C-alpha cells in the first residue's frame, strides 16, 4: 500500500492549511474565477483595459500579454500559478495541447483558426524526425515524461 503514506501526508497538510487558513491566508482579494466582462473574439490584449498590476494578479498585465515571447515561455508562468489564466481561459484550455493521449492534433481541431499557435502543422510525420533529433525536449512539454509509448507505436 504505497499510496497510503503520501496521501495521508497530503491530506494532513491540507487539513492543517484549512484549519489555520482563515487567519493565515493573505487578505489580498483573489483573481476572479471568471472575467467579469465579456471578452471580444480574437486575441485579447489585457492592456486595452488594465494597467500594470491588478489586485490579486501578482504579475503585471504586460507580462502576460499574449505575444510570441509569452506564448513561447507560457509554461514558466503557468508553473507559478494559473489563477490569472483561468479567469479568461476555461479550465480545460491547457488540455487542448497538454493532453498526452489525444488522437487529434491541435491544428486539426483548430483548422479554422490559423492565427492560433497550434503545434504540428503540415505533415508532422515528416518533420518530427528533425525536431526529434534536434530538440527532443520540446516533445516532452506536451507529451509528458512517460509517453514514449507514442514513439513505440511506430518505433518497434
Amino acid at each position: 500500500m504505497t499510496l497510503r503514506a503520501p496521501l495521508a501526508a497530503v491530506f494532513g497538510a491540507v487539513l492543517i492549511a484549512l484549519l489555520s487558513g482563515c487567519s493565515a491566508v493573505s487578505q489580498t482579494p483573489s483573481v476572479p474565477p471568471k472575467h467579469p466582462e465579456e471578452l471580444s473574439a480574437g486575441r485579447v490584449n489585457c492592456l486595452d483595459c488594465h494597467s500594470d498590476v491588478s489586485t490579486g494578479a501578482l504579475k503585471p498585465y504586460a507580462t502576460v500579454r499574449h505575444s510570441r515571447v509569452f506564448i513561447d515561455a507560457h509554461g514558466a508562468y503557468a508553473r507559478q500559478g494559473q489563477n490569472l489564466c483561468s479567469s479568461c481561459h476555461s479550465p480545460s484550455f491547457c488540455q487542448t495541447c497538454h493532453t498526452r493521449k489525444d488522437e487529434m492534433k491541435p491544428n486539426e481541431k483548430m483548422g479554422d483558426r490559423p492565427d492560433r499557435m497550434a503545434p504540428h502543422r503540415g505533415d508532422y510525420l515528416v518533420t518530427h524526425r528533425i525536431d526529434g533529433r534536434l530538440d527532443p525536449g520540446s516533445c516532452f512539454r506536451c507529451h509528458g515524461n512517460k509517453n514514449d509509448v507514442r514513439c513505440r507505436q511506430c518505433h518497434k
Partner: protein
Amino acid sequence: MGRSTTVASSGRWRLPSAVAVFLLLPLLVAGSARAADYSLSSNTYLRYYERELAGGNKNTFAPLYEYLSADAANLGGTPVAFHFYGWGRVDLADPSGSGKESGDLGSAYLEYLHPKGNAQLKLGRFFLAEGVAVETLDGAFFKVTTPLGFGISGYGGAPVEQSILDNVSPGGSLYGGRLFFNRSGATEIGVSYLKEKGPFQGKDRELYGGDLWLRVVPAVEITGQATYNKSTRGMASQRYALRIVPGGRFDISGGYEAYSYKDLFQTALHPIFISPSTPVDNADKVKTIFGVLDWEVVSGLTLELAAKNIRHDKENPGKANRGEAGIRYAFNERKDVFGLSAAAVTSDREENEYQEFRGFVSFSPSKFRFSIDALTQQFKKEIEGKKRAHQVVASAGYKVRPYLSVSGDLTYTQSSTFQQDYAGLVRATLELGTATGGTK
C-alpha cells in the same frame, strides 16, 4: 496504483456513463443547484480520409469525435466549482485507432477558490502545473499564500498514465509540493519537489526544482527554472531568460536553456532510441541560446522574429541554428488575421536542414468565417525520396446561432508520406452558459 485512461472497445458505455455521472455530481454536491453558474462546451468533429495500404488495399476512415467540457461554478452560492473535460471517438468506417472506439476522461474535479489570497483546493482528476510538476493526477491539490507573501502548495494521488496504448506500466503514487514567496508585481520565487513511485528504468522518479520571476525594473524581468533529478543524480533541465517588455506593443526576450537526455528522459527514452544503430545517444546534452521579438509596429501589424542556436554535446546531431521571421496583421476588430512567415534550419548534418514558408488569412463577414492556411517545406536531404512537403487547409464556417457554429475544413497534403492526400473535417461547436463573463 496509477490508472490508465484508455477506454477500450469492451468498455463501450464507460465514457458516456462517466460523463453522465460527473455532470450530475454538482447537483448532488450543491445544496442549491439553482445558484450555480453553468457552462457547457461541445466540439464535435467528423473526419473523413482514405489511406492506401501495402498490397493496394484502401481503407476509408470516418472517425466521429466529441470533446465535451462542462463547468458548474458558484455551487450553492459558495466559491466551489466542478469542472469536467473528456472526449470520445466512434469510427463510422474502418477502425482509425486501436479499436473502433476510444476516449479519455481528461479531468473531473471539485475546486474551491478562496476569495482571498488566491488560495485553492482541488479534488478529483485534474491537470496540474506546479513547480516541477506537469502531470495529470487523481488526487488532491492545495495552495495557500500567507499575508507576508510566503506560501505553500501540495499535491498527492495516483498519476494518470494517459497513453494511446493499453497495458502501460503506471507509477504507483505521486506526491510533492512547492514553497514560494511572492510580492505582487515584483517577484515570485519557489522551490519544489516531486516524487513518483514506480518502475522507471529501475528507480522512482524524484525531482527537485527552483523557479524565479523577478521584475528588476518596471520594463525588465528575469525568469528562471531549474530541475534536478535525484534518481539519476544530474541536472535535468534549466531555462533562464531576460525579457524587456515596456508596454503593450514591444516584447523582446533572450536566454539560455539546457537539458540532459539521461536526466530529463529518465522515464521515457525507449531503448530503440539508445541502440548503437540509431543516432540518439542517452548521454547527450543540449544547450540552447535563444532570442524572440514581438513588436506591434503600427496598430494591428506585428513583426515576429526568433532565433535559436542548438548545441549538442554529441557530434550527431551536433549543432543547429533556426531563424524565423514573420508578420501578422489583425483586422476586422482583431477577429481576423493575415500572416506570413519564413523559417530556416541550418545544421552540421544536412538531414536536419530545411526551410519553411507559411501564409494564412481568415475573413469573417457577418456570420460567415473563411480561412486558408498554406505551408511548404523544402528539405536539404531527401526524406523517403522527397525533398518537399506541402499542406493547404481551407475552412468555411457559419454561425447558426450565437451559441452554435458549424464549419468544414478541406486539407490537401503532399509529402514523403502522402503522394496526394485529401482529408475532410466537419466541425460543430456549441457553447452554452448561464453566466456572463469571459471564457476563451
